[in-house]
């Protein structure tokens, strides 16, 4: 009987093909929007997580300042220095290695080419911390690091902008008024999840940076890699304790530095994407609701149009419940067809968008299932009222209806 009813419903839907298409359009758009939003949102979340993992989940950053934002945070805190870096490495078992990192933005010039780029003063250990291989040339030699020689390792973007087809290794570029020999080329990394180009960078020895660019011995940030056998949480606690000691912060006083780990950063970033995804999906869900109302509207029109048909069915012995079921199933089948088309369309849109945005295409089976069930539920909810109206028609009136 139920199969018979479904068959009848499909027949009725195809009998009015154009109207059926217009009716399900609302559901199709609603479901497609929700699916596309959630899938693209999930994709960018995954991208962020992958980015952070690329950077190393065991990476921590030590920065001066309390790390609080907003009013009340006007304390001037002491900068870090190179001794802090050595102390972290030497005194803490949970720290595998660490590297200073000072960064600024400068014009880099080579021949007639010039480009604004990020210049960072660091040492070879930085490439170890963030796991960034050199694909051509070599890293800093200990002698170059201790003497602060003007040599540099460049990122892929800088190579393209300044050198074009020329082999950069051995060439000399100019940063501000410092002439720097290019000794190495970093592997291309692509854009970070912040949207910045990580390859747009020139690395020089920290001492060269301090002496020739900033003229101070401050270190503005320390990258730390936790030891393989230590959790980042333990490393974080140990670093905080050591830094408090070194900076002579008494009990009860607040830190004048802060330590961040990549996991926090990752969860913060994915948190933002999740909120955005949620908001956009909510907007899309409203269109699903509108689609449902569209179905109800058409089903009501359909009941009026088919009053005579309903009268005939009642006269040949259909019970009120059979008529109710027929119209209800019709609404459900209609909205489920819309749901399926919407899911396919939404996944298609998400695949295209993911491709354009260069993020992974991550369709979640759960959201597909939810969208499908939701569209069926729309059919039940918005189909029930018209169906009940059909079932309660007075057969005599219905037969007389022209």
């Amino acid at each position, binding site marked *: 009987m139920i199969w018979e009813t479904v068959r009848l419903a499909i027949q009725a839907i195809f009998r009015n093909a154009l109207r059926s298409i217009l009716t399900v359009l609302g559901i199709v758009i609603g479901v497609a929007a929700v699916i596309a939003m959630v899938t693209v949102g999930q994709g960018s979340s995954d991208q962020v997580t992958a980015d952070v993992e690329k950077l190393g989940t065991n990476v921590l950053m030590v920065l001066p300042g309390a790390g609080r934002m907003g009013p009340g945070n006007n304390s001037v805190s002491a900068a870090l220095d190179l001794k802090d870096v050595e102390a972290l490495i030497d005194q803490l078992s949970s720290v595998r290695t660490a590297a200073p990192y000072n960064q600024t933005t400068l014009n880099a010039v080579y021949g007639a080419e010039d480009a604004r780029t990020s210049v960072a003063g660091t040492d070879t250990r930085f490439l170890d911390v963030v796991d960034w291989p050199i694909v051509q040339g070599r890293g800093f030699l200990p002698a170059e690091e201790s003497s602060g020689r003007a040599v540099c390792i460049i990122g892929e973007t800088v190579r393209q902008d300044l050198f074009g087809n020329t082999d950069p290794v051995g060439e000399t570029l100019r940063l501000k008024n410092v002439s720097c020999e290019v000794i190495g080329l970093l592997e291309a990394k692509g854009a970070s999840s912040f949207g910045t180009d990580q390859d747009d960078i020139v690395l020089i020895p920290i001492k060269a940076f301090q002496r020739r660019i900033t003229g101070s011995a401050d270190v503005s940030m320390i990258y730390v890699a936790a030891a393989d056998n230590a959790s980042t949480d333990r490393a974080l606690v140990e670093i905080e304790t050591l830094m408090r000691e070194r900076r002579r912060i008494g009990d009860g006083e607040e830190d004048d530095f802060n330590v961040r780990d990549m996991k926090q950063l990752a969860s913060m970033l994915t948190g933002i994407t999740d909120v955005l995804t949620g908001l956009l999906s909510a907007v899309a869900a409203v269109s699903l609701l509108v689609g449902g109302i569209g179905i109800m509207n058409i089903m009501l029109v359909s009941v009026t149009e088919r009053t005579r048909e309903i009268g005939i069915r*009642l*006269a*040949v*012995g*259909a019970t009120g419940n059979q008529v109710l079921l027929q119209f209800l199933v019709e609404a459900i089948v209609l909205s489920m067809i819309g749901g399926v088309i919407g899911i396919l369309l939404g996944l298609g849109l998400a695949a295209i968008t993911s491709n354009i945005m260069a993020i992974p295409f991550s369709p979640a089976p759960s959201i597909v299932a939810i969208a499908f069930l939701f569209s069926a539920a729309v059919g039940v909810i918005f189909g029930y009222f018209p169906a009940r109206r059909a079932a309660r028609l007075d057969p*005599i009136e219905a*037969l007389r209806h022209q």
Partner: protein
Amino acid sequence: MAAPTPVIELRDVTKVYGHGEAEVCAMDGVNISIASGEFVAIMGPSGSGKSTAMNMIGCLDSPTSGEYLFNGVQVGKLTQDQHALLRRNYLGFVFQGFNLLARTSALENVELPMIYKGMPAAERRKRAREALAKVGLAGRESHDPSELSGGQQQRAAIARALVGDPQVILADEPTGNLDTKLSIEIMELLKKLNERDHITIVMVTHEEEMAAYAHRVIWMVDGKVESTGTPDEVFKRGKQSA
């Protein structure tokens, strides 16, 4: 020996539509008894209550007062769903306007009542074909109503009415939309069903030629049964009083 229970028995049935000033008494103390195997024509001028009586017999309408017994069962005490079951299993309807489903083949139209009985598709198809053959529409199973002539549409409707092996066929002005030649064909068909298959037929009509096919005519005026008898008797009486 007691008389067999009539198939249809209306006992003092009254039907009032509307309230207060607008109150209309469509049936006023009507007593009708129809035995199994009878061919009865209900006649009367418009507004005489013959259609209301027909709807009442078809369980499409319920009396304001009085009783309707179908095979001795009080229909008024049955539920809405039981009315539907009664229509499905015992009654077949034939309407003036044919009332076939548009854009649906003759075969599917005839299958309709059996769908609600929950009969398997193959069985349904077989019986629908047989019913169409019985009314002379073999070979036209796949035609839509719009592809059939008026007479053929009415035959398809009759096939639909008889496919469920009903005890009674209720025909409401079955020839009202047809010309004389086709009307006679339809009447011959109904007569055959009555004589050969012993189906009780109750027909509403205002045409004497059609009523002449019936065994008995019930003449209604102003919601009351004015006279009843063989067609000849009733028409003669009517002419005398005119």
